[in-house]
């Protein structure tokens, strides 16, 4: 069992760079290189990664494709710990998923683009801030108010879209870690009442409550008192949803703007069927899935929450620090061959593509980020074919992660992307990445996998496969990589095979 005082090995350092950023960049400042991090304690490294001031970047343009490309380009260029900033922004973009095309369909397009850009900036500004504060900001975020129909939620015929997802996705989860439901349909209806009448003005975008459209208990007595979590648990019996002593009123401060904050405060006090804080477990579980691997144990989640003092503080920095110093952060990096219990995680398209480009030092061309080889296609097309488009998560559920990325369509897009990268003649330069005076095929294979930080991820059999490829099954026992054709045929080919392999597709 490691902790914050455990010293980082080289493999640990690689793992942090890769998981907290995008690939292992060819060029990086000294502190954030493998050599700079190796030998630090996990705690010191965590503090280093988490010590940044969020930037004010927002992906804004007069075309959505350009805005998305601007974001890709911004990620490509992030150095040091600001790569972590972008990883966190994508986490929250998925957690509070909002997509451009839905807003665009409501029109006008320029307003939709502006709202998406502003929401993105909000995630960046708050990515290492306070989670409860962020939820309250999301409650009245312009893009979200449009996306989940808060602007259509009025007293006579309430719209439950936001009231449901606030609970199911943003705070509690539909069920707790025991598979028990966290709320009832009544709670969905009641939370939706709190949001009735919230809207924003077209001219200046200011959010406010339109009192005339707000549901009040006096006007709608049949809907009962404004309370949540008043229903007895139908399965476990004996206790109420949320572990509260009784129904929780969200109009203690009156029936007006205060209601949505009061609802949020109640949600953050919700306890699951183990008596643990539901929001803390839900968010931590998702963060660990994102940065480490799927299905962490309850004990791991609870230990991270406790060490961070997250319940009550809701501060992201100590929570992230607890994850970074925990053993689970390093579990996917164990060397091959892998056992049945080894943990692995599928690299998602943006991580895989941008990480690959950074790890071989290839710069896509122009504003459209063209990969300058093969079919000369743009980065965004590849990422989309792999199943991910930033600013366009498929629904409020965000993207489907892990093995969902592994389909033939998604894999073939990865294979083609890599082919185009290594076929970028004159742009992709492996002669600058490894020593081309090497002639022994085993040494060459090791040099390439070392440069990419993947040596430990190949089995001995796979290493032999790569050597056989270089020698054409022993026909050419040594290689002259300083020969242009040999280098382009075999060294580029070797890079392609390594980057297309499961070792590179997975973490």
């Amino acid at each position, binding site marked *: 069992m490691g902790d914050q005082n455990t010293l980082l090995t080289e493999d640990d350092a690689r793992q942090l760079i890769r998981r907290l950023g995008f690939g292992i960049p060819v060029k990086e400042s000294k502190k954030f290189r493998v050599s700079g991090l190796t030998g630090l304690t996990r705690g010191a490294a965590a503090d280093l990664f988490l010590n940044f001031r969020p930037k004010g970047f927002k992906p804004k343009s007069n075309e959505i494709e350009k805005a998305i490309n601007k974001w890709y380009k911004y990620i490509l260029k992030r150095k040091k710990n600001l790569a972590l900033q972008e990883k966190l922004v994508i986490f929250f973009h998925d957690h509070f998923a909002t997509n451009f095309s839905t807003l665009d369909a409501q029109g006008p397009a320029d307003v939709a683009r502006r709202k998406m850009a502003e929401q993105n900036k909000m995630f960046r500004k708050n990515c290492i801030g306070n989670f409860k504060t962020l939820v309250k900001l999301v409650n009245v975020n312009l893009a979200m108010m449009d996306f989940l129909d808060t602007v259509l939620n009025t007293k006579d015929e309430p719209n439950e879209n936001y009231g449901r997802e606030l609970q199911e996705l943003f705070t509690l989860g539909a069920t707790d870690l025991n598979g028990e439901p966290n709320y009832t349909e009544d709670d969905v209806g009641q939370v939706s009442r709190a949001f009735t009448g919230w809207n924003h003005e077209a001219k200046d975008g200011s959010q406010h409550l339109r009192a005339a459209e707000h549901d009040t208990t006096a006007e709608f007595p049949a809907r009962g008192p404004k309370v949540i979590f008043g229903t007895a648990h139908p399965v476990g019996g004996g206790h109420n949803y949320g572990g509260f002593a009784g129904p929780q009123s969200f109009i203690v401060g009156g029936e007006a703007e205060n209601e949505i904050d009061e609802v949020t405060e109640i949600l953050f006090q919700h306890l699951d069927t183990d008596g643990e804080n539901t929001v803390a477990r839900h968010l931590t579980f998702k963060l660990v899935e994102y940065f480490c691997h799927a299905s962490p144990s309850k004990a791991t989640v609870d230990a991270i929450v406790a060490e961070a003092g997250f319940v009550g503080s809701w501060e992201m920095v100590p929570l992230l620090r607890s994850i970074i110093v925990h053993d689970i952060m390093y579990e996917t990096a164990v060397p091959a061959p892998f056992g049945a219990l080894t943990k692995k995680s599928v690299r998602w398209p943006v991580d895989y593509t941008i990480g690959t480009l950074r790890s071989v030092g290839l710069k896509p061309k122009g504003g459209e980020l063209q990969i300058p080889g093969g079919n000369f296609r743009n980065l965004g097309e590849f990422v989309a074919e792999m199943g991910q488009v930033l600013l366009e998560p498929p629904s409020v559920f965000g993207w489907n992660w892990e093995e969902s990325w592994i389909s033939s369509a998604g894999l073939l897009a990865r294979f083609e992307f890599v082919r185009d990268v290594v076929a970028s003649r004159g742009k992709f330069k492996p002669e600058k990445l490894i020593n081309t005076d090497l002639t022994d095929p085993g040494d060459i294979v090791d040099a390439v996998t070392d440069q990419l930080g993947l040596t430990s991820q190949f089995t001995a059999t796979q290493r032999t496969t790569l050597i056989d490829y270089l020698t054409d099954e022993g026909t050419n026992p040594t290689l002259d990589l300083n020969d242009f054709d040999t280098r382009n045929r075999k060294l580029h080919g070797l890079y392609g095979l390594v980057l297309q392999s499961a070792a590179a597709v*997975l973490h």
Partner: protein
Amino acid sequence: MAITRRQFLKRSGLVTAGGLAGSAGMFGHPLVKTAMAETIGDRYFVILYLEGGNDGLNTVTVADDGLGSLRTQYESWRNAGPSEGGNSSGIRLSPGELAGTLIGDDPNTEAQLALHPGFAGSGPGAGGLKALYDLGKVAVIQGCGYPNADLSHDTSSRIWESADPLGSSGYGNTGWVGRYLADPSTMYGALDIPAININSSIAPEYVQDGTSVVAINRLRNFGFPFDPDYGDDDAAKEMAFLELYAESLASSQPTVEFTGGAGTTTFNASQSYPALHALYEADRPAFDQMYDDLGSSTARDLREVAKIIYGSVTGQPNIDARHFWVDNGGYDTHGDQGGATGKHYDLHNEVASAVKVFYDDIADMDPGLEDKVTILIWSEFSRRIQQNSNGTDHGSQGPMFLIGGKVNGGVYGNHPNIDPLAVDSRPNTVYSQDVLDDFRSTDFRDVYGTVLKHWFNMPHGTILPNVLTLDTGMDPTLFWTVEDFDMTHPVNLGPLFTP
């Protein structure tokens, strides 16, 4: 006990026998599929998913009261639209708007039923699902669902895809079609590709331990990418690629193994499927153009299915896929749903036009080929009977559709009970399996089971429990206690699939 594709690979020694060493050449590699399975039959199945929760109460609408009061109740829940003097926020369909899409009567109340006007289709698909209904090729199955409807998109879609409302079957994350395909009775060989999803990822109902199900967006782009400048190295790259992935497939780490299988299958698919694009373009320009004219994603996706079926029936090598999946998104109409025009109309029009062109395309490929194709349309839930300001929130059971040459067309299943006294507090219609209930619902698994038994000829005893499972020990007035999978037409009493 169903054997999974991966287990089959391992048991048949293809992965672990060390047979990958040595130079096998371009088409001699043991993991390159070469033999056509001749045992898999010639019936095709297409799932079309309406993603987001389709408002089934406007998809199959009551045009009059019949012997009951469904129309009166419908009008009390939903506001009048422009054609009845209301404004665009009213989503109610008027009798006039439904006049062109009338279908059969509700079996229970004898209320005149009508399809949404959008289902009449337009452009090259004019007539749409309504025209196919009139040909007797569409089964409209009302009131499909399961007890205690879960109103989360995520949870409810998983229930439909896994066919396991109680989560008690031990089926894990597998899907019902995936379990069917993995069953030894399907006779698919280990290296066959039984299903293609026209998508960038594999749909959950196709998930099984193996990864032979392939996701393809567009066939024309599915060739394997080799370095164009060094073609003389292709065979060496191919050999190394297949060996790297075979080693991953042999791993005991599940994610690595999964990725290994998917990479191998992807390579195999890339050898046989891309050519079907050019073949179809060359042989079927008129229909190719019709899909183009529709221009919708559903039309383009169904065209990819048509290309594969065409490749299959013309005997192209290694085309073994008989099962397909396409989707049409955007049904989460909380706002701006519209009535006889607007968002919901556009969604239905897209589906109906595309399906009509697809059906005509199939029927034109080969006489009687339409008798070998069935399309199933579903959505994860319906929507609330009471509209909100200008849309509908999440609801409970809704209609399913089966379309095909062998489908015994008509109305199956009862319209949900929308009486104010019968709905729940949301208000949503309530699922019931009580045999004494005139509005008795249809468990969606009865439809799946009927497809499995009568379309795929899967023995009843194999369907249960390999693909579907009974809910035992539950209240029989609520839960599924199916005794057979023989859905029959309520009027002509024939089986749903004509033998």
